């Protein structure tokens, strides 16, 4: 081939290749059924390779499910250890690249509906497709329901309390079986733990990446407050309760110097410190201990949990949340039913999937955590799950007894939560990094900004 001819062929091949490549990018490759007529569904949130035990459990479950349902094929997809890391989730959602059955947080419901990428599954969300559906907590179901339409299936729920390192408690001369119940007790315990030295913080707190605002909200609930007014139009934290939240933190940070020198912590930062045994207490949900061990190299035997502290007595509220699965718009009826069947098996059947405590115990995973509590108290499913949990529990019952025996009313996140949290991050970071920060001024500034945000959101 002569050189000019070769160049011409190369140029045309390049252009054609690029064109075909782009065309390939734009086509969807989802199949509804394979050659054997099996219904195929793709499902995300498969554990990543580093989570060996969880991955093995997932793969075993897929195998068992497919054996029991020879007409269904599950294609699993892993999307990282944090299955709905907000920026990744939003990008996947708006790019339309979610799996057929996709994971999301309770707080994502509005975003999922707005994107137009999920389908209304009201007609299918029943006990014909999920045998335990009638036993699932009404509150959990309601969080995935908007205007009477069901958009998702709840698969986990949580509420926050005080997660603490009982090994550090013992070293500091505190009783590991009796966690602090008020913020004043938290402050005392934090001082004693920080006195251990070696870079150990008595109490850890978030203040960046919107997590500071999230925890401010949880702590505001503990005081009996709420971040926005009942009609959702005005900020409602610039009051005595909001002041107490920030003042408690400021006192621990600067008056007591019991929160360590590293601040501006985000989700992973605090759990990294926890995994390294460098933090005594923080506000979190029971599964924080799972994250500390499976993602941040901590040890189960170090951790225990108490209820959310209150100001002068028991907390008046705590923040609750959860997760679930949505269904991608455009699925066939067979695919929806197959997806529901899978979720019923993996997430909502006592003794199977996430409730297969015999298997979890065998793998050395933590069994006996008080949450999720997805079933209505007194229902057959709740009793079955409770009995299995007690029979197979491998954690000391007293580690979570204080949390379990002192239930706190659960409150949910406000609308426009992420925008509000971003603003409240600023107040939290000011209090935790600037010894001269003024609590009243920070709250006033945040209040003005949240009011401005809510006014714009209402337009």
């Amino acid at each position, binding site marked *: 081939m002569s050189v000019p001819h070769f160049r011409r062929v190369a*140029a045309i091949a390049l252009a054609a290749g690029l064109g075909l490549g782009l065309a390939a990018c734009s086509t969807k490759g989802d199949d509804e059924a394979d050659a054997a007529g099996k219904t195929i569904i793709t499902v995300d949130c498969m554990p990543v390779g580093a989570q060996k035990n969880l991955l093995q459990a997932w793969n075993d479950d897929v195998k068992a499910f497919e054996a029991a349902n020879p007409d269904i094929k599950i294609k699993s997809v892993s999307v990282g250890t944090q299955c709905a890391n907000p920026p990744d989730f939003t990008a996947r959602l708006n790019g339309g690249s979610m799996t057929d059955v996709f994971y999301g947080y309770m707080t994502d419901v509005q975003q999922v509906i707005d994107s137009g990428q999920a389908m209304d599954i009201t007609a299918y969300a029943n006990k014909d497709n999920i045998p335990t559906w009638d036993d699932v907590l009404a509150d959990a179901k309601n969080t995935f329901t908007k205007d009477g339409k069901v958009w998702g299936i709840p698969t986990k729920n949580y509420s926050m309390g005080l997660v603490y390192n009982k090994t550090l408690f013992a070293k500091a001369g505190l009783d590991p079986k009796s966690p602090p119940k008020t913020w004043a007790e938290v402050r005392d315990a934090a001082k004693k733990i920080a006195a251990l030295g070696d870079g150990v913080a008595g109490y850890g707190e978030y203040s*960046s*990446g919107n997590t500071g605002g999230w925890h401010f909200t949880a702590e505001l609930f503990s005081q009996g407050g709420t971040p926005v007014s009942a009609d959702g139009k005005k900020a409602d934290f610039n009051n005595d309760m909001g002041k107490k939240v920030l003042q408690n933190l400021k006192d621990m940070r600067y008056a007591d110097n019991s929160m360590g020198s590293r601040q*501006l912590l985000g989700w992973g*930062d605090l759990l990294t410190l926890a995994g390294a045994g460098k933090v005594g207490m923080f506000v979190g949900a029971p599964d924080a201990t799972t994250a500390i061990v499976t993602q941040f190299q901590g040890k189960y035997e170090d951790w225990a949990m108490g209820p959310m502290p209150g100001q002068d007595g028991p907390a008046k509220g705590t923040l609750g949340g959860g997760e679930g699965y949505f269904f991608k718009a455009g699925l066939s009826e067979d695919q929806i039913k197959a997806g529901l069947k899978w979720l019923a098996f993996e997430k909502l059947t006592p003794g199977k999937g996430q409730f297969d405590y015999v298997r979890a115990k065998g793998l050395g995973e933590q069994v006996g955590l008080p949450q999720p509590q997805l079933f209505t108290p007194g229902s057959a499913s709740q009793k079955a799950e409770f009995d299995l949990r007690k029979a197979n529990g491998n954690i000391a019952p007293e580690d979570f007894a204080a949390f379990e025996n002192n239930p706190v009313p659960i409150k949910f996140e406000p609308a426009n939560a*992420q925008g509000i949290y971003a603003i409240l991050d*600023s107040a939290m970071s000011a209090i935790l990094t600037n010894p001269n920060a003024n609590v009243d001024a920070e709250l006033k500034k945040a209040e003005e900004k949240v009011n401005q*945000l809510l006014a714009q959101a209402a337009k």
Partner: protein
Amino acid sequence: MAIATVPGTGIDVGSQAPQPPADPRRARRNRRIKDNLTGYGFLAGAVICFAFFSWYPMIRGVVMSFQRTRRGETTWVGWDNYDRIINDPSFWIAWKNTLYFTVLALILGYAVPFFLAVLLNEFRHAKGYLRVLVYLPVMLPPASALFLFKYLAYDPSDAGLFNAMLKAVGLPTSQWMQSADMTMPAMVLASTWMNMGGAILIYLAALQNIPGELYEAAELDGAGIWRRITNVTIPQTRLILSLMAMLQVVATMQLFIEPLILANGAGTQDSATSVVYLIYQHGFFQNDLNGAAALGVIMLVALIGFSAVYARLNAKQD
């Protein structure tokens, strides 16, 4: 093509049939296209890439900035997104921070590489070694370099690298990223360290193009090093300096990875919130891709405006 045959004989007469005279202009055009086929082929590759990965997203961004998607339905909302984004509580904070970073980066990030290049150009020994040394940070992935700064250099305790150094020479330590006043200077320092290698190499190339006679003449006239820099080096590299200044401003205005990694986003008391980080917040945290698109368009217009004014001023000087 239909084939003309003589009825009943099957004889093809198509080739002998009288043809209308060919249009000479069309023939010329066809020949030109054929002659340039290779060029068009290669051009198509670039055009397809630009069209899909640059122009289409840009146009789509502008279109999205005038739309709003709710419950899967997209409607035209005029200037509503712009109104919402301009009234966002962090809008002016983000612009103020971004401009502050740009100014600081011009002072530090622009001047330092130039003077380092002049210095390196003066060395007679170990030239290659020194050039590799200054270019090394560029080869480090930006995220890794920033994590080094975050956890090693900017650790606010006395164990942090910079604090240990300050303490060793008897200077007061700093809270670095935990201090609203230090956030921007610390980000500029990290950013300059990460990026100056590329700029230094460009300046070095420009410096080596300056004829040696000019320096000799200046020396004969009794010019010291400072006079030689101001009267020979800077005028001779003015074109490249001016281009680099514009590129630097355009790049620093798009400040994002530094706040994201060093300051976990907004930094303490919003001291690190940049315009691009605000776009990211709206697009990926607040379910407001349309507002994010509007802010992106505002940024685009601002940068086009700056570039146009800058180019005009430069043209006038020429």
